[in-house]
């Protein structure tokens, strides 16, 4: 009898606690729904949409951008060009570590202003070796320093990309022209990809990016620089909204020393092919087998 009473009490108590926990667990969902429209919640995966569905989504995102940020933006969906396969090379002999590339990335890709975020991180390392552990990204003295060299690191668009493999929901994948992209509306924000990347190239939107309306770059693409929602991953896309339309990436145009070379691997006359065939080229952390499309080189 005594035991029954205790069991009943436990049951009742457990049920009450369970209901409370369930309600608490659902609370973020009810709050979150205020910011996410039904259309957005029901949106298909990027690859599952047909052209018409995609155009509806792009129009909706443009409307949302206008409502939220007060800026008329154009969000396109440029696709890879057949016969184009991108690669990037960077000349460590001439990079001076001025971070102009990082600034250009910040502005071009509509990064959050408060964090001064950028897809490019410039490592300052002692001359004589590549010791990433001793590399610093927070230097503020005039550059270049005589004892150091500078290595900008951004997404290497690996052909064997660990970040793509670990994504549990296929929200990130490699495109036909070599660019690794993220469907921000499909990403669940688990950050596995961030942990998997040996180049520390992915970024997480801890907060909704805040950008003054007049500073927003209105030339946007679905898979690249449109203003990201809170709680999703993002990364360098080789500025696909520019490069898939034939233009140079923003970081290349900003480089004052011409350290950056970008182009089409499938064009034997391209600058990138000349660099790969004639310079002392290496990839970062070759031993981890990621097969990057981002190369570093030295002058003789």
């Amino acid at each position, binding site marked *: 009898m005594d035991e029954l009473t205790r069991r009943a009490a436990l049951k009742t108590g457990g049920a009450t606690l369970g209901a409370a926990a369930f309600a608490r667990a659902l609370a973020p969902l009810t709050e979150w729904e205020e910011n996410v429209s039904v259309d957005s919640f029901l949106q298909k995966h990027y690859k599952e949409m047909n052209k018409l569905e995609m155009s509806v989504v792009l129009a909706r995102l443009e409307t949302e951008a206008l409502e939220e940020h007060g800026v008329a933006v154009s969000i396109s969906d440029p696709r890879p060009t057949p016969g184009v396969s991108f690669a990037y090379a960077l000349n460590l002999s001439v990079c001076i570590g001025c971070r102009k590339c990082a600034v250009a990335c910040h502005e071009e890709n509509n990064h959050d202003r408060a964090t001064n975020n950028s897809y490019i991180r410039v490592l300052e390392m002692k001359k004589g070796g590549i010791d990433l552990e001793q590399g610093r990204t*927070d230097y503020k003295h005039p550059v270049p320093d005589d004892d150091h060299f500078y290595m900008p690191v951004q997404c290497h668009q690996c052909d064997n990309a660990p970040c*793509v493999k670990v994504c549990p929901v296929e929200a990130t994948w490699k495109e036909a022209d070599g660019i690794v992209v993220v469907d921000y509306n499909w990403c669940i924000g688990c950050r596995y990809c961030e942990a998997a990347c040996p180049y520390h190239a992915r970024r997480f939107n801890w907060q909704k990016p805040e950008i003054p309306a007049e500073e927003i770059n209105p030339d946007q693409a679905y898979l690249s620089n449109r203003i990201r929602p809170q709680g999703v991953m993002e990364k360098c896309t080789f500025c696909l909204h520019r490069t898939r339309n034939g233009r140079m990436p923003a970081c290349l145009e900003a480089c004052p020393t011409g350290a950056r070379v970008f182009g089409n691997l499938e064009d034997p006359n391209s600058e990138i092919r000349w660099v790969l065939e004639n310079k002392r080229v290496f990839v970062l952390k070759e031993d981890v087998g990621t097969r990057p499309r981002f190369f570093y080189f030295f002058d003789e």
Partner: protein
Amino acid sequence: MSTLLVLLGCQAGFADPSREFGAPVLEGERFPTEVHTPTTLGVVDTPVTDVHGTPVGVACATCHGPDAATAWASRPGEPFHTGVELHHGPITCASCHDPDDRTKLRLADGTGLDLADAMTLCAQCHGPQFRDYTHGSHGGMAGYWDTRRGPRTRNHCVDCHAPHAPAYAPVVPAAPANDRTPLEDSHG
């Protein structure tokens, strides 16, 4: 090279295959690639400054006429040339400038050269840099990687390297990101 081009096929394809690719590569005509013409060619800074504090430039030919009498009228350190400090290896004025015509440059073989063609002169000594420049791996550029879709502009040597003191002066870098970078909070 082919291994670089191999793509991963482990993920789901496009439900609508027509969405996978855009328009094919354009064929034929290419847009021009133009080398920027620096405004500083043939001009030296003087000690006189304008209202913004910028040195006023004066054309070389203002003093150095084509006749022999005025050709060497002034030398480094003299009033008009205080802005010219030569930090460019063991060369002298006449290594690059035509002593008989200061509106022109002069190649090592004696051939005269317009100031606008200064890159040819630089290339005499800086062969590896010129080779790299011609292959797009030295010197900044802007515009289109695919010149079938748009033009490109290239920097002139003098855009980045002052001819009389070509070494890059140190610059103050832009601010780093305030993101959560393990490298930044480690070990001082």
